[in-house]
C-alpha cells in the first residue's frame, strides 16, 4: 500500500452528509440568512446563531424561546448555548467553514466537534445554489439528528438539514417560513 492509497482509504472512511438547494435570491442574501442572527433565528429550529466571521472566530447558537418552553414543560433543563464551534474560513458570500458541536443532549455533546461547510454559488442571475456538507465522522448521534431521524417523534427533534434548507428557501423566496 502506498501512502496515496492510505490517504484515499482514510478519505473514503469519512462520513459526509451533503445537502443542496436552489434558491431564487442572490448569494449575498443567502449568506446573510445563514450568518446574521436577525435572519438565522427565523427558520429551521429558530435558534439564533452568532458568528465571528474570521478564522478562529467563535460560533454559538442560543436556545430559542420555543426550545426553552418545551424543555420547561417537559421538566428538563436546556443549556443557554445549544450549539458551539469555531469559524475556520469565512469568504462572504461564497464559503463558510466551521466546527459544530451540538449541546442539546448529552449524547450529541459527547460526539464532540464536527465540521460544517456552506458553499454558495450563483448559477443564474438571482439564483443561488447552496450546498451544505456536514462531516459527521465519529458523531453518530449528531448524524441522526441532522439527517432528520427524530422528526416524527416531535419534541423539537426537527427534520434536520433537509427541513432547515426547505424552510430557508421558503423564507427567502416567499417571505414566510413553512410553519407560519
Amino acid at each position, binding site marked *: 500500500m502506498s501512502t*496515496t492509497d492510505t*490517504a*484515499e482509504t482514510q*478519505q*473514503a472512511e469519512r*462520513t*459526509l*452528509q*451533503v*445537502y*443542496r*438547494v*436552489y434558491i431564487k435570491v442572490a448569494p449575498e442574501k443567502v449568506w446573510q440568512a445563514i450568518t446574521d442572527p436577525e435572519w438565522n433565528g427565523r427558520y429551521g429550529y429558530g435558534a439564533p446563531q452568532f458568528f465571528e466571521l474570521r478564522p478562529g472566530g467563535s460560533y454559538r447558537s442560543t436556545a430559542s424561546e420555543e426550545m426553552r418552553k418545551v424543555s420547561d414543560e417537559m421538566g428538563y433543563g436546556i443549556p443557554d448555548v445549544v450549539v458551539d464551534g469555531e469559524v475556520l474560513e469565512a469568504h462572504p458570500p461564497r464559503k463558510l467553514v466551521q466546527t459544530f458541536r451540538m449541546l442539546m443532549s448529552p449524547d450529541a455533546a459527547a460526539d464532540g466537534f464536527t465540521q460544517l461547510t456552506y458553499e454558495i454559488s450563483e448559477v443564474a442571475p438571482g439564483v443561488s445554489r447552496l*450546498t451544505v*456538507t456536514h462531516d459527521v465522522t465519529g458523531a453518530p448521534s449528531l448524524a441522526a439528528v441532522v439527517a*432528520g431521524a427524530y422528526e*416524527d417523534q416531535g419534541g423539537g427533534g426537527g*427534520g434536520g*438539514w*433537509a*427541513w432547515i*434548507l*426547505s424552510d430557508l*428557501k*421558503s423564507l427567502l423566496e416567499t417571505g414566510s417560513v*413553512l*410553519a407560519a
Partner: protein
Amino acid sequence: MDDDRVFKALADPTRRLLLDRLFVRDGQTLTELESAVEMTRYGVMKHLKVLEEAGLVVPRRSGREKLHFLNPVPIRLIHDRWIDKYTERHAAALVDLKNELEGQS
C-alpha cells in the same frame, strides 16, 4: 430546480434502486453503484446523470474518485409544497393502518 425533473427521475425503478443504495450507504463511487444493478457501466452513468440533473444526487470529488451523495432536499421540497401539517397527520395514520393490516396477514 423544477419538480418535473424530480418526478421524472423518480419514475424509473433503476434510479429509485440507486437512491435506495445511497440511502443505505452514502457517498459511493460509480463502480460500487454498478455492482448493485444488472446494467452496463454506461447505463448506470446515464441514470446517475438524470439523478444529478434533478438534484437528487450530488457528486463530490475525493482524490481521483467521484463520490455520489443522496440529496433528500428536492423530495423534502415536494413534501413541504404538497402536504401541509394537517394532511400529513392523516397520511401518517393511513400508513400506520396499512402497516398494521399488512403485518396481520
